[in-house]
Structures are given as structure tokens and as C-alpha cells.
């Protein structure tokens, strides 16, 4: 295992988690549609395609969370900003699997569930976007002098 390059280890973790997460999400999260209504077949195909993207993003995110911190630390920013940027990138990749599946389970007309998802995911993603913009600006401002 230690003979494998960093890229290979990263790719193996991302792919393995991605592959496992697709059937897991199909089994665990059943869409909560109003009684008597179901997805049309073409929409089901697109939904499965979405599961593939979510799985791949989840796998890449977990691989990034496993290997990414020492890399982000090299930016030489404060400990807090480094940690926040690392978590923000990870969150931007990992969140979609629980996020989209919770939207499906929550259903259409559950207002409080929808608000909980909005604050738990959408709001935190806005904050993560702000953290990344700040980190990006700080890193690239230093980069030309260092590279």
C-alpha cells in the first residue's frame, strides 16, 4: 500500500467510496412523494446519474479530508484559516450526498424540514464559499512572490 503513489491512493479511496455510496443511497433514502405519485422513467435515469455524481463527489471529498490537510498547511496561513479552508473544500464535496438525499426524503411540503436543510446545508455552503474566497485571495497574493 505504501508503494502506491499519492495520486493512486487518493483515486482508490475516492472510487471505492463513490461506488459503495451509490447503491447505499438508493437503499437508504427512498423519495417521499405524495401518495399515488412516482417518478417517470426518464427522470429516474437522470436521478441515478445524479447519484453517480454525488458518489464521486463524496469519495473525492473523503479522500481530500484524509490527505488534504498537510497540503493546505503548506500555504503558511494562520491555523484557523487553514483549518476552515480545509473543511470548506471538504464540505463542498462531501455535503451533496446527504444534502440531496435529505431533500428526497423530506418531500415537497415539509416546510420545517426544508428550512432545516436550507440552514444546515445552503447557509453553511455560503459561509464556506466566503472562507474559500478569502483563503484563495490570501494564497494567490503570496504565490507570485514564492513561485
Amino acid at each position, binding site marked *: 500500500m505504501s508503494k502506491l503513489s499519492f495520486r493512486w491512493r487518493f483515486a482508490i479511496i475516492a472510487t471505492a467510496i463513490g461506488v459503495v455510496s451509490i447503491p447505499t443511497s438508493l437503499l437508504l433514502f427512498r423519495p417521499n*412523494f*405524495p401518495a399515488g*405519485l412516482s*417518478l*417517470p422513467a426518464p*427522470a429516474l435515469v*437522470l*436521478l441515478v446519474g*445524479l447519484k453517480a*455524481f*454525488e458518489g*464521486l*463527489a463524496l469519495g*473525492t*471529498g473523503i479522500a*481530500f479530508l484524509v490527505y*488534504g490537510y498537510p*497540503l*493546505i498547511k*503548506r*500555504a503558511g496561513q494562520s491555523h484557523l484559516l487553514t483549518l476552515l*479552508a480545509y473543511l470548506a*473544500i471538504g464540505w*463542498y*464535496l462531501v455535503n*451533496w450526498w446527504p*444534502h*440531496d438525499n435529505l431533500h428526497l426524503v423530506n418531500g*415537497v411540503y415539509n*416546510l*420545517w424540514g426544508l*428550512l432545516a436543510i*436550507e*440552514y444546515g446545508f*445552503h*447557509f453553511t*455552503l*455560503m459561509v*464556506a*464559499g*466566503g472562507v*474559500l*474566497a478569502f483563503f*484563495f*485571495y490570501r*494564497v*494567490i*497574493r*503570496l*504565490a*507570485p512572490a*514564492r*513561485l
Partner: protein
Amino acid sequence: MRNRYSRVDVRFRSGLITLVVACITFSITFVIWPPLVPRWGPATAQALGYGLLAAESVAIGGGVAFLAFGYPTVKRLSVSPRLAVASYLGIGYFLVNWWPHDHLHAIALSLDFSSLIWMSIAIEYVFHVGMMVFGGVLALFFAQILIATSATEPATESATVPARDTATVREVMVR
């Protein structure tokens, strides 16, 4: 005049743009979009809806400020220009997308079931998959730029230290 303008702190200008765009966005929301929380919703839910709208407005303002001031810095980077521009656009998208995104979800919820399904799938592919792809682009960008930065650090140090020493030696010789 131009020099005085350029001396104004970029943080101040970014903050000003964020505030102005956020105020405009917050105001026009009531004209062009339906409410995030339906009118029949309880008062607490309405308040949470307004809180979310405020966050979306600040995010879009921050995104516009980032897109306005970030590009000249991105151009100077020595990583692949395509990757640098994709990362710059990705962060901008992370901040700007929430305002149209959340309100399009609200519109979808007011449609009949079939239209709701198709519109939701379109939103999922345009916004959610878009952000997943940009998340991957950003992880790759930071990996490349930070690996490159740390790889050049010893060379930079070794280039700087002898230069200082040489200057000292010359001073000693002149004296």
C-alpha cells in the same frame, strides 16, 4: 486622482461593493421572486426565510466583489491558466449561485408534480453538479499551487540568503 483611487484599500472597496450589491439584491427579491417561505407559513418560518434571504444577498455581494477584484491576481499565477481561471470562476459561482438557486427551488415547489420533478432535476444538474465539479477543480487547484509553492521554497531561501551575504562581503571589502 487615479493614484488616490488605487490607494483605497481593496478590502474597503470589496466591502462597499458587497454591501451595495447585497442591498440591491435584497430589495429586488420582493419584485422578481416568490417568497422563499410560502405566505401561509408561521411567523418563525417567515423570519428564518428572511434570514436566509439576507445570507444569500451578502453571498451574492461577496461573489460580485470577488469576481471584480480577484481576476488581476489570478492572471499572475504560474499554475495552468485554465485551472486558475476555473478556480476563480468556481469560487465566484459558490457565492453568486445561491440567490437564483434557492428562489428557483421555491418556484419549483409551486408547480404541479410533473413540472416540479423536471425543474428540480434541471436545478440539480445546473447548480448541484456544477458546484460538485467546481469543488473538485478547487481541490486540484489548491493541491497544485501549494505543492508548487512548497517545492520552490528551499530554492527561494537559498537564493536570498547568499545575496544578503554577498552584499555584506562587498561592504566589508569597500571598508
